[in-house]
């Protein structure tokens, strides 16, 4: 009985601020609702609209593009860092700490910092690039799709790579040294050991890291809200950004809920597929 009492506060919070809103999202998604006024039932109209809504379609495409580019870049850099500093010595721990510091800084703070660093004229990096002859310091890099995309990518890599590194290092360290030594004795070189021992045994960690970065990229909002504001010409609006606009700027709460449900389904599907793929190939 005491167990029930102990659990009660947690269940009340999860019920009130998770399950109830979740049910309400599903419910609202079948209505034409705004903040004021009576919602009217529209069946699956909101979902039907979502598939013909070119604004949302473009946001989805952009989010997919961002995810497809971000995920391998992050993984490669996280993996590289992990390989560099995976040994547990005093010096490597210092470097691990340095690479991890940006992780504890919020995405918003990192974005405000990048906003200044890449400003035309007054920003130090455009200035540096200008001096190196790699561009003009006065060019507004936030006004062009690809340059602002690059700025976001660099910022996110700086902020997140350390987390991927840490997870990968912990995965690498959990591989028994016996296996490694056995491989060495059998005459395996560094590359062979990596390819045939480290990589397969690291599969669960890789799955985790991939789910983190795919889910994080699909939910991207802060960095685009601050660095690009969705521009130029709405070309960097992400799915969450578009849902925010639909729900809280245009006040189409019902339609926004339908879009949220779609986003939730996609996220669920992505992590399920990723888990399945990585688990199945285990047996090969």
């Amino acid at each position, binding site marked *: 009985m*005491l167990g029930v009492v102990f*659990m009660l506060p947690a269940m009340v919070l999860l019920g009130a601020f998770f399950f109830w809103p979740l049910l309400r999202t599903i419910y609202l998604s079948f209505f034409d609702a705004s903040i004021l006024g009576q919602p009217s039932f529209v069946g699956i109209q909101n979902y039907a609209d979502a598939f013909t809504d070119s604004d949302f379609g473009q946001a989805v495409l952009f989010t997919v593009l961002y995810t497809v580019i971000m995920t391998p870049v992050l993984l490669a850099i996280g993996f590289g*860092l992990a390989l560099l500093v995976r040994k547990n010595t005093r010096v490597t721990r210092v470097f691990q700490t340095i690479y991890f510091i940006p992780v504890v800084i919020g995405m918003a703070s990192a974005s*405000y910092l990048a906003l200044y660093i890449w400003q035309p004229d*007054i920003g130090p990096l455009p200035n540096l690039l200008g001096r190196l002859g790699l561009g003009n310091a006065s060019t507004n890099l936030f006004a062009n799709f690809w340059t602002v995309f690059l700025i976001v990518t660099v910022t996110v890599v700086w902020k997140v790579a350390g987390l991927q590194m840490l997870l990968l290092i912990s995965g690498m360290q959990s591989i028994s040294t016996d296996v490694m030594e056995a491989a060495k004795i059998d005459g395996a070189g560094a590359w062979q050991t990596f390819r045939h021992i480290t990589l397969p045994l690291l599969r669960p960690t890789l799955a985790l890291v991939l789910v983190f970065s795919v889910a994080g990229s699909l939910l991207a909002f802060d960095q685009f809200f601050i660095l690009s504001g969705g521009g130029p010409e709405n070309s960097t609006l992400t799915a969450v950004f578009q849902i925010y606009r639909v*729900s809280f700027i245009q006040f189409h709460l019902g339609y926004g809920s339908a879009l949220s449900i779609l986003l939730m389904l996609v996220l669920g599907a992505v992590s399920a597929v990723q888990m399945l793929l990585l688990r199945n190939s285990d047996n090969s």
Partner: protein
Amino acid sequence: MTSTTARTTLRSRSTAQTDAPRRRRSSFLPTGAWWVVNVCLAVLFLYPLYILIIQAIKSPAEAAAVPPTAFPHQFSLHNFVELGTSQGGLSLLSSLGNSLFVSVLTTLVTLVVSTFAGYAFAKLPFRGSRFLFFVTLVTFMVPFQAIITPLYLTLKDLGLQNNLVGLSLVMATFNLPFGIFVMRNSFAAIPPSLEEAALIDGATAFGAMRRVMLPIAVPGLVSTALLTFFAAWNEFFATLILITDQSKYTLPVSLSILSAGQNNSVNWGLLEAGVLITVIPCVVIYLILQKYYVAGLLSGAVK
């Protein structure tokens, strides 16, 4: 039999041999190259933080200089003084207060609630508690961004919309699954004999938890507290939507008003000073309590 012996000797010899090259920190790079690569990377990773600090301590004129100065010619606390003055109805100092309030309240609620629930899951199982634990973990799969609209409406119904307590409760809820998970594992790792001994000595179930079990679970508590505090301190999206009154904004959201600029001009020195006071607590706490932070992160991630 012989081959096993041979293998064992070989292995012990190979261990002895690797003693010297063991000093090499990577099997991929020679030591010199390893140092060069790491020092370059460290410079790249620290560069933005260097820029952040010097920009915040430059005088207003220097902060807006073209081209930017590589190091401050003049040390100025002007930006930090200005944090306290109102910028068009927005005082960053009160935002700092709001941030502290929300982060501390979120952390406290998460700690207390997840300690009780974690203890119940680990030590006081009842019919259906396994199912409830599964339900708790399911919440990991749903991003709160997806249910933000009804969250806004629910808070409105409760009279907690545009309210820092409401925001804290929401953030605590979204940190609960992690907290419960970590606390359950912390308590589950304690042998039952310890609890039994306390009960035999006449402690009540609650007393056993508080006096005997809780002290052992301190590392789990610290990890949960750290991760929750960081998440609440840095939260942007939830605050942006659930708080509509500028005077109640937390630091990350207040800064968005500053970065949008007034009359088309952004006060970069002031903005970066604001970012600096947002960043410093996180970095300092991380450097001091790194061990707990990393342990919590790993135990939560590798579930």
